[in-house]
């Protein structure tokens, strides 16, 4: 079931996502690129789906569709193509989450129905865990730097090409 949903999602974002995002160097030194348009598939599909769920659990936004989280995960997935160690980190990390989910009586992490249960698993794993670190720190840029997602948050992006805000509401609020 999860696989089907994922396939749809991934097709969806591939369609919408060509040439989305000119990525850059994060403070951590991680370099990410606009690679998801190439349908990366380094991790197993179940792993990919779990990473998408984990991403949403880290930064849950009701208004943000799965495709955006999948875009962010694709960046990790792409990096894992050229690095055995990176790939192992993702696969092993998800395996650990799944094992913890089974201890809670579920089949795997991504199918645990209750967000609180999934979050508890992430918390138990701990912020210092290299796998957790990798997924979360990638999201800070990989998720929030997607321009298509900015309007959802009410951020308007570049303005010089539109003449700035001098005639477009830099001082338009009247509630104070």
């Amino acid at each position, binding site marked *: 079931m999860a696989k089907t949903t994922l396939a749809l999602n991934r097709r969806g974002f591939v369609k919408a996502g060509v040439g989305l995002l*000119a*990525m*850059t*160097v*994060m*403070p*951590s*030194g991680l370099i990410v690129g606009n690679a998801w348009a190439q349908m990366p598939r380094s991790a197993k599909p179940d792993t990919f789906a779990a990473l998408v769920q984990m991403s949403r659990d*880290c*930064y*849950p*936004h009701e*208004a943000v569709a799965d495709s955006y989280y999948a875009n962010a995960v694709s960046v990790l997935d792409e990096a894992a193509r050229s690095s055995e160690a990176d790939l192992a980190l993702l696969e092993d990390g998800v395996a650990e989450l799944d094992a913890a989910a089974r201890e809670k009586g579920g089949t795997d992490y991504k199918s645990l129905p209750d967000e609180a249960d999934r*979050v508890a698993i992430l918390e138990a794993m701990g*912020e210092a865990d290299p796998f957790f670190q990798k997924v*979360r720190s990638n999201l*800070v*840029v990989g*998720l*929030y*730097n997607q321009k298509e997602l*900015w309007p959802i*948050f*009410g*951020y*308007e*992006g*570049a*303005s*010089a*090409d539109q*003449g*700035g*805000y*001098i005639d*477009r*509401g*830099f*001082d*338009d*609020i009247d*509630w*104070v």
Partner: protein
Amino acid sequence: MPAPYDLNDDSVVVIVGSGAGGGTLGTQLALKGIDTVILEAGSRHETWDFINDEWDSFAQLAWKDKRRTSGDWRVSKDFPNLPAWIVKSVGGSTVHWAGASLRFQEHEFKTKTHYGELADANLLDWPIDLTEMEPWYAMAEDRMGVTRTNGIPGLPGNNNFKVMEAGAKKIGYKEVHTGRMAINSEPRDDRGSCLQIGFCFQGCKSGAKWSTLVAEIPKGEATGKLEVRPDCMVLKIEHNDAGKVTGVVYADKEGRMQRQKARMIAVAGNSIESPRLLLNSASSKFPDGLANSSGQVGRNYMRHTTGSVYGIFEKPVHMYRGTTMAGIIRDEAKHDPSRGFVGGYEFETLSLGLPFMAAFLDPGKWGRDFSSAMDGYANMAGMWIVGEDMPRADNRVTLSDEKDEHGMPIPDVHFDDHENDTAMRNHAYKQGAAIYDAVGAVRTIETPPYPSTHNLGTNRMSEKPEDGVVNRFGQAHDISNLFVSDGSQFTTGAAENPTLTIVALALRQADHIAGRMAKGEL
């Protein structure tokens, strides 16, 4: 026309760095007819190259060479290789800067006298005072076109300012306005006025904001007496047997080593790179590094006591629209120890775009609490705290055992908050939240300091050679033809944003150097 000087021309003044200090000094020397070469590690990006996108702009302009950190500051944990957010590009950090331009207060030049002995603080009086600096401040304000000086009107207040102003007045603050900003509120100096673009930190695409890139260096180059050589990373300063400096070794764009001779050298690489360069220039004659007989090179690193407060409201603010920092509250800038700390602080409006907000609001945080704050982005107002931090001997820049691509040791920046810094920050967090609460904030958030944008003090100015690195003119106590021309000269940090003082000092230094040269003393 930019004058290309020969590598073996030992009649030129060489300046390391083209930012607030170096770009101003180089231009002013050229205007006085002195042959000057500025070596700049970064590339030359002009106004039309700037990008209205936070991460892309960061990739274009920021200093990203690896650095290390240590100490108890949170930056060291969250951004272990990025202690400072500053620029590597012609124009230096004046390309990124927001334009807030404030004079020091009188007592801030004499903190040891006014604050007294403070445990674990290496306070020292500046060898100069406000009276002596006033004409140079006036000249700098005119040069930079600072609003609310020289008859220049203030900038209009944006939404972010309106929220802060209303809250500040409600809790009784009096000195609240749109700041003294080196941003044109009306056309001036062949540059247009601010279009409220809102990407001041990404390089102003309208040219309204003063920077050495747009407002100084072109004037220097027009004299035919200034050459700005980009993509040149200075690695070492050389000297002769008499202990005078003779030239620099630098890596050019292709990574080739070059040697530029010089009659005099001024170091202006900002407060991490300047001491790094002096320390890396150690020789058998100067085993602890150049100009370091006091042992103070690299010490007393200051970064201002900072932090931010964000308020989330029921209605939209769109704080990112318009000038990033045109808004200030000055009531807390005074020295009033009854608050539980010495020195003072300012509140200034601040906004980040969504991408930087995600990275800096509460680094490392995740979960509903964090993401719900991000959900409130459109309704968010923001302010920055900037206050005086205490110089400490062990807050310092040192050379680590790791080398960069040119074989130069990378710097380690060690910083521990002084208890005075912490007390001040907590006071400011409380007041900042009260400001937003007074106008109906549904939530306020205390954001920890960002990687340092103000870096100061690592080659401090002192009356006596044993107390510091340079004298009242920024001239090294130990070496008469070596100067320091950037924020690393600061003896103490004051509550005010530093750049106006850096520029005023550079103008004064140029006058001094030209005078001494005319007399044949340099």
